[in-house]
């Protein structure tokens, strides 16, 4: 009987990965690679680097599948977010941040060119100011706004309580409002 890999949940796939199943690993990667790429991209703002970080994270999981301990971790994605965030932060410590790309694509073709220019300029300023935020504030913003996680999930990933996370978000937003409003 053929195994329907897509039907298996993350926990089942991880248990199979611990037995050396490449099929399970492939299913998990295909299911989550884009999500974790988006998170990494928001930190590094560079496609190849973000892809390398996601690849490293998944290969670490493959090499040491027993890092995943279902009795200690609640959810695979929560645990793996932590791994990707840590790899992104490590990368930022090692490398000097690269300048943001000059060419930001104009995604909406119906938009008037002058509006598009203003929007692109705002985006560029926003990314610059986010990159200048303290590490934890940046992580809170990335998880809550860009990844659409709930505050509680983001707090779990960051290992802080809910109030601390809300405080980080508030401080980050206040700083951004002040800097972008200048």
């Amino acid at each position: 009987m053929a195994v329907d890999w897509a039907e298996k949940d993350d926990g089942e796939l991880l248990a199979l990965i611990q037995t050396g199943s490449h099929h399970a690993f492939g299913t998990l990667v295909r299911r989550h690679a884009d999500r974790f790429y988006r998170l990494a991209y928001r930190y590094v703002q560079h496609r190849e680097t973000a892809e390398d970080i996601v690849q490293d994270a998944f290969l670490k999981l493959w090499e040491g599948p027993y890092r995943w301990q279902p009795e200690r971790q609640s959810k695979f994605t929560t645990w793996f977010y932590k791994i990707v965030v840590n790899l992104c932060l490590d990368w930022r410590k090692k490398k000097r941040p690269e300048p943001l790309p000059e060419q930001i694509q104009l995604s909406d073709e119906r938009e008037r060119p002058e509006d598009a220019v203003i929007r692109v300029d705002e985006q560029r300023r926003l990314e610059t100011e986010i990159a200048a935020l303290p590490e934890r504030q940046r992580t809170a913003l990335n998880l809550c706004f860009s990844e659409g996680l709930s505050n509680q999930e983001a707090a779990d990933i960051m290992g802080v309580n809910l109030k601390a996370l809300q405080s980080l978000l508030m401080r980050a937003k206040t700083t951004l409002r002040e800097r972008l409003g200048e």
Partner: protein
Amino acid sequence: MSAMRDEKLEEMLRQRRVESPSVNLAERIILKAQSTPQSQAAPLGQSIRRLFAEFHLPSPAYVLAGTLLVGFLVGFNNPFDSTPADQPSAPSAQAFLYADEDAL
């Protein structure tokens, strides 16, 4: 730009641009994993934790309640001076405890 409103900032944060990943990102990772050896042995600490996880210890509340229940059952079934009337010669605990005193 005047003082930015909270809603506009949140909207901008939600709409941050992300460059699309390579179409073969997942396949590249999978291919790389196929040539990467896997560490099969679970760490010692984890093995021990898993072993202990097989033995579930009851919670203290259940232990206390169970002990009390057994105590009451035993107590009701064997009251302190429940020597049957048809067995007058059976030594009761009370008689035994006071035996020396009587002798004195």
